[in-house]
């Protein structure tokens, strides 16, 4: 896992997303252990409170769970849950903003669909 943080968004959110990426890509399979807050804090040079905040986002979403005294593990079904969530985000982030921009430029619905087909084919 390689974290590169940008200024634009809070670090804890970026950490949560990158851990999600790791789970989706299979770097952290379901039921496997993820790095502890201490490891994340030292390795990526962030305050442990920030690391905990990022991890707790995933705990709240049921993507990972804590085993007392053992550490944190990827939940069963986490991959499916995440890919559903990402598909929803895909719609909001890309499709909705694409339609917005298309309207601004006066691109019709059928032209837009034509462009998507062209993109898929290439």
């Amino acid at each position: 896992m390689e974290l590169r943080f940008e200024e634009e968004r809070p670090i804890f959110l970026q950490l949560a997303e990158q851990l999600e990426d790791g789970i989706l890509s299979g770097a952290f399979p379901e039921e496997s252990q993820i790095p502890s807050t201490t490891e994340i804090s030292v390795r990526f040079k962030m305050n442990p409170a920030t690391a905990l905040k990022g991890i707790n986002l995933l705990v709240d979403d049921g993507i990972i769970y804590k085993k007392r005294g053992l550490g944190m593990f990827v939940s069963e079904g986490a991959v499916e849950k995440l890919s559903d969530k990402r598909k929803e985000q895909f719609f909001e982030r890309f499709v909705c903003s694409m339609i917005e921009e298309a309207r601004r430029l006066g691109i019709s619905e059928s032209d837009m669909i034509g462009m998507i087909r062209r993109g898929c084919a290439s």
Partner: protein
Amino acid sequence: MKKITLSGISKSFGGSRALENVDLTFESGKIYGLLGRNGAGKTTLLKILYGILYPSSGRVLSDDKEIRINDNFLGNLFYVGEPDYFPVETSLRKLFSETKYFRPEFDTEYALSLTSLFGLDSSKSLRSLSTGQRTLFKDILALSSGASFIFLDEPILGLDANRRDILYRTILGKYNESPFTIVISTHLIEEISSIVEHVIILHEGRVVRDEPLDSLLASGYSVSGKKDAVRKYISGKSVMGIDALGGFECAYILGARQENGHQDELEFGRLSLQKIFVQMTGSKGGDDK
């Protein structure tokens, strides 16, 4: 000791004011960033905390109680100022064992392990060290001190990127093991912004910001675009400052983001600690036409 409080601290040197009515609290187990430009009063503040300087007025409290000479207050604290206070011909190894003499909680073994981690030779004298190596010596003393409140004054002065990296990891490793309070005083901000939890900004002897990093970063935003559009948008808003580049401008605004209806012509962004710092401590009246 759970907290140290500065209450109404002012300090003058001759006729010039170094600190003006400073109220601050340092709680246990937190990483603080004490930020200010050169001459903002950071070092004076640390020296007053450590009893090297007396304030002109105001009090330093430990857990809400006035500090008395016989308290073990200083045993809980560690501050290293300029290393010139040390005998310069003495070897680092000897300086460690002498520190142990004054401070029984000092971890000599840990100090020696950090010395080799940073590639220093413990048989060398303080005089033979470069600026960066002296900084490291101070940092090693502080991290090995066993104190529950550590004050680091410019802990990365003269350090190359590699050693800064090791230093941050060392601090965090130690902090994760058993949280202590660490106050990092620096004017090099961007690098420590992911480490600190709470930020204090000093400007010309006054505290201008004292709050958790998250809330500080959320307290404003940037907006950029063509000059006319930016000017129209910011009118009536609380503007910290504006950077201009030809017909393009970027304004830094305090308050909650209001993007509605403006996304077409303006771009909205988050503030970084560096940007907030520069805007809060820049010379006034820099609004260039």
